[in-house]
């Protein structure tokens, strides 16, 4: 019985864009188990403030060197404390948790679309898809659409490019790439499968798009969590049928067409 709870060593923790931090953790067991779309449930402090753990997507995992990467934006107390942690400290994590993106589809044209911090799980996904494609000799170019508030808050672009993806960038203020939203860019293309993560308005537009073009789509959702493992029923998200699902256990990845926004 695997105990999915670890004290991971912080190998690196640095700011990679405005308020965006990249933390590398040494945790061989979790690195081995992780699949794209899963998350870590992290204790940000060893005091009672903040009390609850914080869910953060796995942005990369390297089974060989036993490390996991996360990328997070400082938005409140928990992430502020995370950002103050130093190399060499250890951190209490539960995970990998959640279901992850299904990547076994035999498809040609894949679109990955992310907004802001929603980019994080997509990085790990992109890497796995690239590995799978190079193995299977599938050389079709896949597209990535990323949206950021502003150039200063952008990250990950070179990562996707280095994997061979065709990367399209937009920013709200036009300081980098197209001025607008990534959903504006994707409207010109057609795909067999879409993987998405980002703010709700972006996902709602993608849902309409995917339904219109009848494209199989998977989305990673966010909801406030307490336990992170399906025990408290705290992270409910309403589905078109079947009532509420738990983001932490049934998700965070869902079929986009089934979600009610």
């Amino acid at each position, binding site marked *: 019985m695997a105990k*999915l709870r670890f004290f991971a060593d912080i190998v690196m923790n640095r700011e990679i864009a405005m308020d965006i931090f990249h933390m590398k953790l040494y945790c061989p067991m979790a690195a081995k188990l992780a699949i794209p779309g899963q998350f870590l449930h992290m204790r940000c402090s060893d005091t009672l403030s903040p*009390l609850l753990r914080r869910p953060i997507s796995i942005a990369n995992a390297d089974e060989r060197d036993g490390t996991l990467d996360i990328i997070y934006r400082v938005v409140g107390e928990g992430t502020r404390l995370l950002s103050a942690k130093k190399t060499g400290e250890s951190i209490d994590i*539960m995970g990998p948790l959640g279901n992850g993106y299904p990547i076994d589809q035999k498809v040609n044209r894949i679109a990955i679309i992310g907004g802001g911090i929603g980019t994080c799980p997509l990085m790990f996904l992109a890497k796995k898809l690239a590995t799978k494609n190079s193995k299977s000799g599938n050389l079709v170019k896949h597209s990535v659409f990323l949206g950021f508030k502003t150039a200063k808050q952008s990250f990950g672009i070179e990562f996707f490019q280095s994997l061979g993806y065709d990367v399209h960038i937009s920013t709200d203020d036009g300081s980098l790439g197209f001025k607008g939203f990534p959903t504006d860019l994707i409207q010109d293309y057609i795909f067999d499968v879409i993987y998405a993560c980002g703010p709700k308005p972006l996902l709602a537009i993608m849902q309409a798009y995917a339904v219109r073009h009848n494209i199989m789509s998977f989305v990673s959702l966010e909801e406030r969590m307490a336990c992170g493992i399906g025990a408290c029923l705290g992270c*409910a998200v309403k589905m078109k049928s079947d009532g509420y699902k738990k983001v932490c256990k049934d998700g965070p990845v869902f079929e986009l067409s089934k979600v009610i926004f």
Partner: protein
Amino acid sequence: MNNDRISCKQNTHKTDLSLEIAGIAMKNPVMVASGTFGFGREYSEFIDINNLGAIVTKGLTFLPKEGNPPPRTYETPGGMLNSVGLENPGVENFIKKEMPYLNSLSIPVIVNIDGDTVNEYYKIAKRLDNVKNISALEINISCPNVKQGGMAFGQDPQNAYEVVKAVKEGTNLPIIVKLSPNVTKVEKIAEAAVSAGADAISLINTLLGMAIDIYEKKPVFYRTFAGLSGPAVKPVALRMVWQVYDAVDVPIIGMGGIFTWQDAIEFILAGASAVAVGTANFVEPQAPEKIVAGIEHYLKEQFEENIRLNDIIGLAHKANID
């Protein structure tokens, strides 16, 4: 106060944590609180559930319940608010889908039940009466997150009396009555529950609280109010355990903000025969196991050999009298 609320099975170990509450034999006094541990399965990836004193399930209603719209949780200083709204599969699905796993455990299973009406409580109790491997029912008359019933039964002695009476009629299982802290005199509700036949009292359920989203300019929760739990509420929970211990003669299961073994000992010294860990599970899944070890250590360190857990229940009341 009396010392014979619980009878301890003496064994050869020096510190014996085993006890019997309302006929439920437990190997230690550390349970998990209803609604914080699902139906057990999920936490099996993090702890060995058979190390617990007992498991208490998520609250069950007669029919399945969908629960409240999100958000359902919200962090507060030292605590959290929840408004799950008793999402649960209903008693039949529970028996079919959850009991098989619970049957595989070697520890007592306590089923938490909830109803909109006195009759619903009766019906659930009756339905569960002949289900094997259920050790006791915990009657939740204190859920703040539902439209009807719930807490209203726990805020009035007469209502509490009626619910307990009805459940007693429906089942021969031992009955634990779970009290709401949102009352002027919790001991009055406890007395009513005991006079209706409660075999044990558990407390506290969540304190009624709320939060407002200052940018949306509206309550965070769909039902406006939600239940406050976690370390923030511990001083209140402890006080209520103390008051109920002074008022009734049945065993008490204490909970509310228990995080460490030191917290658990405070509850035991205040009069709790057993304790339940709730919110702490979310933060520290090993909290219940660590608490068992801590209690054992405390007994060994602070008392002479052959001390039984029994001997220290409510001990702080005696100091007070001197």
